[in-house]
């Protein structure tokens, strides 16, 4: 029976508080439906369902703070709930022949091969099977046997902190018992006092607490980034005259609601340039680079006075400028009012920060792990610029790139910034 678990809503999230259920037992849900509201250290997020079916049981009450991966609800098949239970996966049956590629892919995607049905010759698991499983699977749920999961829940053990001794690092019941220091599980109902405490704690959280939690979350992630990622930095100044002229012309003809801001053009160029330089779009996982299959552009949004979040503009490379602009406005407003979607906070493949409005000319950012690059745009500045041998005063912007030297070298980064520049010279094609 599929469980709906506390999703990881960003690399820096360890736990979340379930603020509100938007569904009840008996409700039919579809993949992508918003089913709950979760509060993390950084924001309040609407969480979507990963599968379709009927809500059978809510396992966690509103107000409870739980670790990422904790089951929140049981969701039954869309058909009658009792319909044909799928045979439980046999732990240890993983020793069929998988190619190293498949194993690597599975590790990268966090797919437990014991639960994947192989469609290759002799039941071997193919790359497509893993892709499929990854797509179906709840986000970054730790691999664990169902018993281990239940035990962890009862004993209050954070699954993600347990080193699994099972196949492919799967956490088994024994691992949990070892960590919890118990030989056997307590039989009683699960820790009511903990819940009550959590509820009280959540209620008592003041704005100051939230701000402190936000600083801590940012601090942890950025420290990890600087500790683990060998950053290299590049910078270039881009002539924006063509883009600016084109945008002003567009804005003169468009109603206010459809006007563009320079940031929209910069973001689109940043996304499109990844087609030419895909080495910067993806994740550094298990000592190698895993390219992303789509461009989900994280956009750093400053939350007035209380930090920042970087929600994703999904498939930013395919969005027409007016659409991108609309999405940018929408996501910015929701980031500030605290209503982002889980899918937006979880999966940016590269992040862009634009501090131009705060008056600085260049920003060299810190990469969000496990991403491998961060693009920065400064303020649009009028600068004397030589064009065709003549000096003119033109609008320019300084574009920067912070990139992970494990995943790429300076030449690759240079090609990326040059591509962004080239794209911005033809704004009508953005």
């Amino acid at each position: 029976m599929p469980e709906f678990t506390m999703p990881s809503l960003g690399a820096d999230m360890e736990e979340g508080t379930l603020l509100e259920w938007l569904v009840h037992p008996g409700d039919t849900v579809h993949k992508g439906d918003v089913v709950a509201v979760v509060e993390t250290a950084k924001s309040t997020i609407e969480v979507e369902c990963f599968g379709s079916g009927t809500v059978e049981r809510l396992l966690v009450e509103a107000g409870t703070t739980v670790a990422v991966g904790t089951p929140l609800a049981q969701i039954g098949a869309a058909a009658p709930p009792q319909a044909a239970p799928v045979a439980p996966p046999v732990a240890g049956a993983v020793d069929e022949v998988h190619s190293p590629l498949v194993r690597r892919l599975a590790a990268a995607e966090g797919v437990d091969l014991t639960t994947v049905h192989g469609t290759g010759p002799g039941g071997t698991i193919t790359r497509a099977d893993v892709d499929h499983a990854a797509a179906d699977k709840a986000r970054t749920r730790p691999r664990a046997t169902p018993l281990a999961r239940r035990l962890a829940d009862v004993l209050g053990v954070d699954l993600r902190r347990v080193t699994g001794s099972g196949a492919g690092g799967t956490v088994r019941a024994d691992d949990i018992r070892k960590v919890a220091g118990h030989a056997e599980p307590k039989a009683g109902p699960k820790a009511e006092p903990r819940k009550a405490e959590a509820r009280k704690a959540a209620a008592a959280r003041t704005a100051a607490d939230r701000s402190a939690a936000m600083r801590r979350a940012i601090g942890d992630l950025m420290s990890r980034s600087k500790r683990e990622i060998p950053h290299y930095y590049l910078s270039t100044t881009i002539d924006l005259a063509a883009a600016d002229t084109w945008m002003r012309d567009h804005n003169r003809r468009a109603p206010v609601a459809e006007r563009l801001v320079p940031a929209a053009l910069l973001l689109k160029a940043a996304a499109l340039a990844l087609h030419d330089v895909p080495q910067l779009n993806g994740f550094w996982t298990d000592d190698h680079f895993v390219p992303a299959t789509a461009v989900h552009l994280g956009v750093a949004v400053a939350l007035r006075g209380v930090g920042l979040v970087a929600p994703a503009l999904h498939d930013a490379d395919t969005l027409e400028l007016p659409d991108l602009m609309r999405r940018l406005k929408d996501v910015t407003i929701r980031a500030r009012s605290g209503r982002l979607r889980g899918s937006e906070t979880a999966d940016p493949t590269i992040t862009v920060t634009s501090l131009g409005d705060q008056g600085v000319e260049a920003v060299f950012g810190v990469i969000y792990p496990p991403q491998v690059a961060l693009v920065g745009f400064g303020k649009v500045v009028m600068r004397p610029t030589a064009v065709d041998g003549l000096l003119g005063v033109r609008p320019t912007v300084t574009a920067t790139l912070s990139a992970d030297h494990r995943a790429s070298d300076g030449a690759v980064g240079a090609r990326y910034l040059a591509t962004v520049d080239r794209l911005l010279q033809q704004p009508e094609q953005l």
Partner: protein
Amino acid sequence: MTREEALGIVKEAITSIVPDADFDSLAPDERFRDTLELDSLDFLGFVETLSDRTGCRIDEDDYPSLTTLADVADFLTDRCWRTRD
């Protein structure tokens, strides 16, 4: 539209973007965009609300005359007086 009405609309437009904006500490000739840290999206939203509420077209070329509360109120009373019904 009186200047008083215009100022009311300006404050309303700002409040829709910065809900806790403190107008008591904001001088009429202060650059509110800097003080309130409005980015370009915020400012566009501000202009959008002004246009909606007054029915008056505000072009990008007008943005420089919208830097202080007093400026915006003047702009609205001048410009929108003629264009409104």
